[in-house]
């Protein structure tokens, strides 16, 4: 998809400051940059700031764009850096993408074994569940979150993600693995509670029916 987006744009015109061509670029990429920004900074106002700053910096930087990365990877890089700057202003911890993790070598481990895959998709993707999923992503350290979003949501390869974030491919793999497992653990907790509540509800209904039947028989 990104190849198709990119092929229709003239890099030469973009580098020469062609405004109509740049408007085309914004049309093609503003959706994905806005999605990334929303998930990185977690509120619409900051996401809009990131969106604007990303394209302002892209417009200024295009004459120097060497084309070694794809346009989308380059735009993602600018957007992630802008997002991290916004988070830094909010004084959240762990603010640099190249900051080493406290336990870089440790892998995130599964904390619970909950087979939630059998739940109906309607419940797995309910409005409430989606809010919880968003909260789970918010809880990731920014350096894990950026890797997860670029790899699993934006669909970049390990190599492209490493390029966008200026990380080694090994670091991308390690961080992706940790982010995925952390999200899995959080979702397992959530869906596990839902499954337990449903089970209690079903047992209560069965019990009520049995009581009603016994009462009916005794009358």
């Amino acid at each position, binding site marked *: 998809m990104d190849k198709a987006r990119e092929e229709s744009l003239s890099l030469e015109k973009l580098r020469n400051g062609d405004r109509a061509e740049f*408007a085309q670029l914004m049309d093609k990429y503003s959706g994905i940059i806005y999605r990334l920004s929303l998930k990185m900074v977690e509120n619409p106002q900051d996401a809009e700031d990131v969106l604007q700053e990303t394209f302002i910096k892209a417009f200024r930087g295009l004459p120097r764009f060497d084309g070694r990365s794809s346009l989308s990877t380059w735009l993602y890089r600018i957007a992630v850096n802008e997002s991290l700057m916004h988070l830094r202003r909010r004084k959240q911890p762990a603010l640099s993408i190249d900051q080493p993790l406290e336990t870089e070598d440790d892998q995130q481990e599964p904390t619970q074994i909950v*087979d939630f895959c059998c739940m109906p998709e309607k419940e797995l*993707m309910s409005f409430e569940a989606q809010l919880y999923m968003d909260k789970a992503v918010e809880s990731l350290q920014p350096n894990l979150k950026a890797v997860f979003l670029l790899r699993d949501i934006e669909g970049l390869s390990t190599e492209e993600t490493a390029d966008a974030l200026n990380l080694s491919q090994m670091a991308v793999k390690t961080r992706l693995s940790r982010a995925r497992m952390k999200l*899995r653990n959080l979702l397992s907790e959530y869906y596990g509670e839902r499954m337990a509540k449903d089970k209690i509800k079903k047992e209560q209904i069965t019990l009520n029916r049995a009581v009603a039947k016994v009462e009916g028989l005794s009358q």
Partner: protein
Amino acid sequence: MMEIDHLRDKKHCGDLLSNLSEFIDGTLQEELCEKIQEHMDSCENCRVVVDSLRKTIYLYQVTSPEPAVPEAVRERLYRRLDLEQFLK
């Protein structure tokens, strides 16, 4: 729901965990894939971990469509870059 604290102690479960992400992406060496598959056939806990990890990624992907940028946000973006004339 079953708490697990012994999973890492089992050698094969540990092997699986350290390669899980690449296994799911299909980028792991064939030989290792076969070993993991073999282990999963006999380890219910690991099967659940793999399935739920796959499902987690799937759920995030299907619930994250590319959003249309809200019209007002789009207009402000074009204005900020002095490109209003190209607003369609």
